[in-house]
């Protein structure tokens, strides 16, 4: 009787499935962050020149910066429509913890906007002559890093969702918090290119991920309560 027990797991799954359904009914918007990511990265060889050594050197930074911007571009949509049609109020009025609902929404958001980046990243790596031995680290660092971007971004989005034009404020709020992820992510890929040991960087990113999974939903829930109050 999972359906009827109304437990936390059931709410989590319901929110997750609902958000995924909504995303798939807006297939056009679904591809936006991915298109942005691919376009930005593929413009660099045109702007800088096709020399493999130059491209390989800047590849980790380009891919990471583009992934970061693509993920930030998608942030605003996380709570926007739910705020506008009153769904967010209904979620805040549920007797289930808002933080669990928020975590489900962020997971759905990451599956839609973050996961595709992971899948395309190796392809873009090839485009930029990234050495083969760095590919795995590139995907691993993005797998650990992009969820952090979504989770941290959710706090800023929750705070600015009540504002008509919160875009600039949102970037100002979350960019400083994105910087550590960018530094360790790009550094890990760089070191992997040079054949160095990168477990330290990846552990640190794992720690950031665990920290943000634990704390970000609570902060986001509080931010949403402020925004709808």
């Amino acid at each position: 009787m999972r359906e009827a027990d109304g437990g936390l797991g059931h709410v989590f799954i319901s929110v997750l499935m609902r958000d995924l359904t909504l995303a798939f009914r807006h297939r056009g918007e679904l591809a936006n962050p991915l298109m942005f990511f691919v376009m930005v990265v593929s413009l660099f060889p045109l702007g800088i020149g096709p020399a493999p050594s130059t491209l390989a050197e800047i590849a980790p930074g380009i891919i990471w910066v583009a992934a970061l911007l693509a993920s930030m571009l998608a942030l605003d949509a996380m709570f926007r429509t739910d705020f506008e049609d009153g769904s967010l109020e209904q979620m805040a009025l549920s007797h289930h913890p808002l933080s669990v609902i928020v975590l489900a929404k962020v997971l759905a958001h990451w599956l839609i906007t973050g996961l595709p980046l992971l899948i395309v990243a190796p392809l873009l790596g090839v485009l930029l002559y990234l050495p083969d031995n760095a590919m795995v680290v590139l995907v691993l660092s993005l797998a650990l890093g992009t969820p952090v971007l979504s989770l941290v971004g959710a706090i800023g989005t929750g705070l600015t969702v009540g504002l008509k034009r919160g875009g600039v404020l949102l970037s100002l709020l979350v960019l400083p918090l994105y910087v550590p992820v960018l530094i360790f992510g790009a550094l890990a890929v760089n070191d992997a290119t040079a054949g160095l040991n990168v477990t330290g960087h990846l552990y640190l990113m794992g720690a950031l991920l665990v920290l943000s999974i634990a704390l970000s939903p609570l902060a986001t829930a509080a931010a949403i309560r402020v925004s709808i109050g």
Partner: protein
Amino acid sequence: MLIAARDLACERDDRLLFSDLNFQLAAREILQVEGRNGSGKTSLLRIVCGLALASSGGIYWRDQPVERVRTDYLGQINYLGHHAGVKAELTPLENLRFAQALTNPRRDVDLGAVLGRLSLRGFEDVPCRMLSAGQNRRVGLARLLVSDALLWVLDEPFTALDRKGIADVEDIFLEHVQAGGIVILTTHHTTRLDGCTVKVIDLSAEVPGP
């Protein structure tokens, strides 16, 4: 006494909307909040739900301040605001299923029958953006019937409904009240809620305009 408001005051942008507002409701009672536009009806309902904070005073649920029994209290509330929380991309059935997951679901509810009761039969699988404003309102109101909550807080529930819709919804309110529930609503519409206690507060009378 199930729910009581004690010495509520509400300010918006340095303007006092109401102050020293008191009411208490027992089971089987309806509170109708009246007042001109901008007199604070919606603000009052949002304070009752805990979505907004009162400048002073508080809401008590079974004689406990709601901040202390928050989870219990939220499990007993069903709120319908100006924006009904109906997702335009989802069908009425999907909307209802999600609403059910968020609340304390009522046992053994037939979602098809609930939608039928609000004249939405035949529209179960049509995305809500294809439905009219009145039909979307009905989808929002259908949520009331799938949850077990005692306290219904409704902001202008009759908006966009046709005459038959209004009568249907009034019947649903009466049924809920007779089953021991409470309804708090704002409306400009003269209701036909006979056979139960209807208390009225008029917010226009609280603070004379500047």
